[in-house]
């Protein structure tokens, strides 16, 4: 899922433009971005960050800033979790 400080309506237009089918969540009040400790206080937006969260709600992998542009590490972390499920 994606999260940003955009409004639900901006996310709707964005989702249509880029053709995503997964949820894009709107954190318009910045409450959750702040809770996750990634609010950029110079510009009131999120630092680009990807969290991989397992079924128990525990963070298993984090990509920050430039690392988060490349989905391969998060994808690998997901594969590890899937593999664990099979054990």
């Amino acid at each position, binding site marked *: *899922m*994606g*999260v*940003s*400080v*955009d409004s*639900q309506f*901006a*996310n*709707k*237009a*964005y*989702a249509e*433009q880029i053709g995503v089918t997964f*949820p*894009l*969540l*709107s*954190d318009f009040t910045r409450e*959750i*971005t702040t*809770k*996750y*400790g*990634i609010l950029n206080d110079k510009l009131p*937006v*999120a*630092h*680009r*960050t*990807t*969290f*991989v*969260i*397992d*079924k*128990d*709600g*525990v*963070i*298993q*992998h*984090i990509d920050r800033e430039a690392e*988060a*542009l490349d989905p391969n590490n*998060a994808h690998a972390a*997901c594969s590890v*979790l*899937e593999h664990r499920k099979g054990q």
Partner: protein
Amino acid sequence: MQTRLRVTAGAMLLALASTLAAQTGPLKVGDKAPDFTLPDQSGNKVSLNQFQGKKNLVLAFYVLAFTGG
């Protein structure tokens, strides 16, 4: 007596400081992900809780819509 009071006060301060650090420090691998409920692009409310015990999740915070993510 005074020494004991000082030690107790010191221990309390240390406990308070570590609690505050735990609450405000950056999230790390192994931490529990904070719960949230947020609207998706269709207005449906989505919570982290609803995936508990069911699905692993990728939560990607992007900077702004229409900016290449």
